[in-house]
């Protein structure tokens, strides 16, 4: 049974289940439903995985690939734009991390533009940008300790991407 975002996750996988190179169009067909509508929890996770991806995509070279930016950077660009579009500055920390660490000046510049636009559009609610290391027990291996970044919002701690939903997302937008 095919899993969600199969092409995209396969292209990003270090040890993919199959050795098949994916087409750019397949990846975009996976991504488009995620970024063209308000984000679901799974979609948000996918976008975070995309912007944290540091490898090379397993892609077949074709003319449908982007031309003004490498595919890896284009995916991150779209993921960051989507996070900015649908969650405002909720992932400002992640956005800034990409902006500061990417070797691509084009991507770094785009992230700055996304942050600027999100600041202009979304209401400003000061949020503490504190993060700390926590340890949690992985459900897959009870003995394995997994370190995760913990974010805080209005006194509540949450693992990025696992924050409880509220009815009106716009009210959740903070910076």
């Amino acid at each position: 049974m095919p899993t969600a975002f199969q092409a995209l996750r396969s292209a990003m996988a270090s040890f993919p289940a199959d050795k098949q190179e994916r087409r750019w169009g397949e990846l975009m067909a996976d991504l488009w439903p995620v970024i063209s509508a308000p984000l679901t929890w799974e979609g948000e996770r996918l976008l975070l995985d995309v912007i944290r991806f540091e490898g090379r995509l397993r892609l077949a070279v074709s003319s449908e690939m982007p031309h003004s930016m490498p595919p890896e950077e284009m995916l991150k660009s779209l993921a960051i734009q989507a996070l900015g579009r649908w969650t405002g500055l909720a992932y400002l920390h992640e956005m800034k991390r990409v902006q500061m660490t990417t070797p691509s000046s084009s991507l770094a510049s785009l992230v700055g533009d996304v942050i600027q636009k999100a600041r202009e559009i979304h209401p400003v609610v000061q949020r503490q940008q504190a993060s700390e290391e926590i340890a949690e027990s992985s459900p897959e291996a009870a003995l394995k300790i997994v370190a995760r970044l913990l974010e805080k919002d209005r006194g509540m701690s949450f693992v990025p991407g696992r924050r409880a939903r509220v009815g009106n997302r716009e009210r959740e937008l903070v910076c």
Partner: protein
Amino acid sequence: MSSPASTVPPPVAPFSVYSVHFDFPGGQAIKLRDPATNQFIGTTPEWVASVRNEMAAYVRATRPEMRVIFRGTPAVNGTYTVGADGMPIQVDERRVTLAFDPGSGLSAPEVFRANGNLPDQIGLHPTTLHWYVREMPAPAHCPPAGTSTHLIATSWRALATAPAPEAGLSNWVYRPLMEWTCRWAAGQNDEKAICDAIIASVASSGLRYGVLGIYEVRDLLLNQGGMCEAWYKTFQQMAQCQGIFVYRRRFLVDWRQVANGEVLWCAIVIRRGGLNQAVPTHDASNFHDNHVGFPIPAGMAFPIVNITERRYRFWGLPHYHYDGHCINFLEYNGELYLYDACFGMGPIQVNAPLPVNNLNVVQGGANLAPFKAAYLDHAIEYMLGSIWNGPDFLQSFHVPAFLYVNGMTVRMTDITQVVNGHDGLTFRWGN
């Protein structure tokens, strides 16, 4: 009958030159990288007898220093006065104490200095140095100590750096770019003349536009070409070699849906193959060309030419900054000049300020007009849109399945500043 000539050969030095190192730590050479290995060429001596001979580069009129190793035997360890004759530079004589390693036969490196400056112009200079040992004051014969041959490039200025807030540049360049630009711009002495010379000769590099999947300078050099991202970086580094900063800019398709459901525009469409490419490398697809005019008056339908052929398509994406084309700009004497290395175009004077690197800003209509008139009307044949033609809606789309379908292609020259009360053409600028 003449007396027999002497058969005694002139004496030679008891050692010979083994290596010459220009880009040694503390030297003045420009740092060059080999694209094949991605290592600095000057990590080891550029010239090693019978083993290696790589180019070195300096800013013009530099008086270079070089680190030299000699080969001999411990039996001839001693103090010698060593120098070199040659062209276009000679090497100052220097008294050195040489001790040769019993195993390798090599001396410790000694730093020598040219006795004059390299040529005061951009160029490539085949250089020969005849090393010798001076035993007696001139003009007495000096025993030769071997010959080294070099290719020395002289650039116009030190490697360019980027002005804030533009993206920074490396403090090194790839060797082929330095070699090519010193050849193409030889004798030029002006920012624009140098950039003009580079763009005029870039095709002679053999590098191509349209090599899919190539986005970086090194990959472009290794694969003999690349797409526009690789090319605007490469042209920037070519200019950087000569100490000139050119800006990088991307203009991205602004997917703009208007009131009647039309989309102006979905993609940039180019028919020409680009640098050293006879035809575009994109797959052929079916286009519906409007060669009559634009906008199409309400209720009217223009004849459409259907044609299947290879064309470059740079697509936009609804609500997102996606793809476009990459070019370079030079600011010179208060004027702005555009260079499009992908298509070997330039210089093109644009009577407008440098586009601001901000994807949140839409540039269109009158603000885009100087750029359109100077460049777009000549470089980009068509824009692809979703457009009504009488009762027919020729829709361009690729979402959601990313199977690319062409709507109507409109000639760039037919797109007016204002279409139905809105900007006829808009782009967003990034770097």
